[in-house]
């Protein structure tokens, strides 16, 4: 099992969601995070400038079978491309899983 952690832009979420569903990846979670960007942005408030260095991004977390990792990466890439590109995808290992209400463990619990 692997865990995909992907960072996309908020406006990309609908398309990425659809692309994941199409790739038959139907379970995941999304959070808002504040993330860095290559360039800071200048904003104003009551006449005072400020450099904003953290921007709103969406973090996806998807735990899936090893063989679905490539498909999920492609889906995210495809979904995010449609509305502007960029983003990052990371992969980590998952060693165990449990579906508490069935008692299934490991791969079976996905």
């Amino acid at each position, binding site marked *: 099992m692997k865990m995909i952690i992907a960072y996309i832009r*908020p*406006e990309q*979420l*609908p398309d990425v969601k659809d692309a994941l569903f199409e790739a038959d990846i139907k379970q995941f979670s999304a959070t*808002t995070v504040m993330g860095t960007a290559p360039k800071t942005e*200048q*904003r*104003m*408030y009551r006449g005072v400038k400020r450099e904003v260095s953290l921007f*709103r991004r*969406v973090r996806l977390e998807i735990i899936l079978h090893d063989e679905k990792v490539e498909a999920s990466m492609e889906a995210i890439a495809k979904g995010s491309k449609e*509305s502007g590109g960029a983003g990052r995808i990371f992969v980590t290992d998952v060693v165990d899983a449990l579906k508490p209400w069935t008692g299934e463990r490991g791969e079976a619990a996905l």
Partner: protein
Amino acid sequence: MEFNAIDTLWIIMAAILVFFMQAGFGMVEAGLVRTKNTANVLMKNVLDFCFAVLAYFIFGYAIMYGSEGAFAGTSGWFMMGITESPVEGVPVEAFWFFQAVFAGAAATIVAGAVAERMKFVAYLAYSFVISAVIYPVVGHWVWGGGWLADLNFHDFAGSTVVHAVGGVAALMGAIRLGPRIGRFNKDGSPNVISGHNLPLVMLGVFILWFGWFGFNAGSTLGFGDPVSVSRIIMNTALAPSTGAIFAMAIAWIKYGKPDLSLALNGALAGLVGITAPCAVVGGVDALIIGAVAGILVIYGNIWLNAWRVDDPVGAVPVHAINGIWGTLAVGLFGKASLGAPLDGLFYGGGFEQLGIQALGTTASLLFVAVTMWIVFKVIDMIIGMRVSRETELRGLDLDEHGQESYSGFQIFTTE
């Protein structure tokens, strides 16, 4: 000249209430857009009022009340040379203020319909033009001694003059701009874009209703007839009540659940519907007029979705459709004994007043539709109406004002 203290006091108090409706519009519109466009719509609300005051001081009053031509007044720019109001016993400054806040109301109706995609500077240009010229021309026709006044067209407090004018301008704006990104699917079916803050919407509707008592009852332009004022006040309580109840009920039946924002739209619909006939109908008539308004607002909303017109706050069903309904209602329910020019259809007066009402509202709205279409066209050519796709996605607050409406709350933009 002798001034009448109580008439003046009443007009001033009523106008202050109408002024406060501006905050009501602001809250309704802010609550029904997304967090990322909230400051922008608020800013439009604040500034369209400021521009309305300025424009109505410089041009608007002169056109509306400056002199008695059939089409438009032509004197009194900057209020210069104007020493008397058309209402005996009321100083012109008080009368001006009452009229100026009406102009502001007409202008601000548009803000909601064009929200989340219209450029701020384009909106400023629009708002100056409507308050300086377009609203005053229609106002002159009906209230300033123009040709519709001569025909005995009866629009007591402005179902047509204020609401339908604003509502049709809103429709033109919404059509020209096109829908917000994601509002309609490729197959034309509508999507939901939820308003971000319903408590503000509820507050806004109650502020509007509160102000509407001044709007309708102040249009007596004095307190010489306490019974008439009292009847207007009663009707202004009755019609929105059935408006909200019927809008809720129809939505409940059609969609399975009672929707807060549609019930609130129903209350506003009832208010718009009773605005023209408020002085010349009885309580039971008011209940019926409100109920019909509540039903119309639901169907208006459905029609807009079917035509793929995107009106984030329901300005068109509320103000345009019910503005027309209210104007026609005078021809249906009006009673000569209460001050209507003729009895309405349901009280044995036949079709005559109804015909006049239909003519008046059609003429006014055609005028507004054509001129506003041109105005928006010109604005589009010179400065552009719509923000870029990128700005729309990021939100107008950041790109147009460089700031956000909320800070500290964690915002989940795509929810």
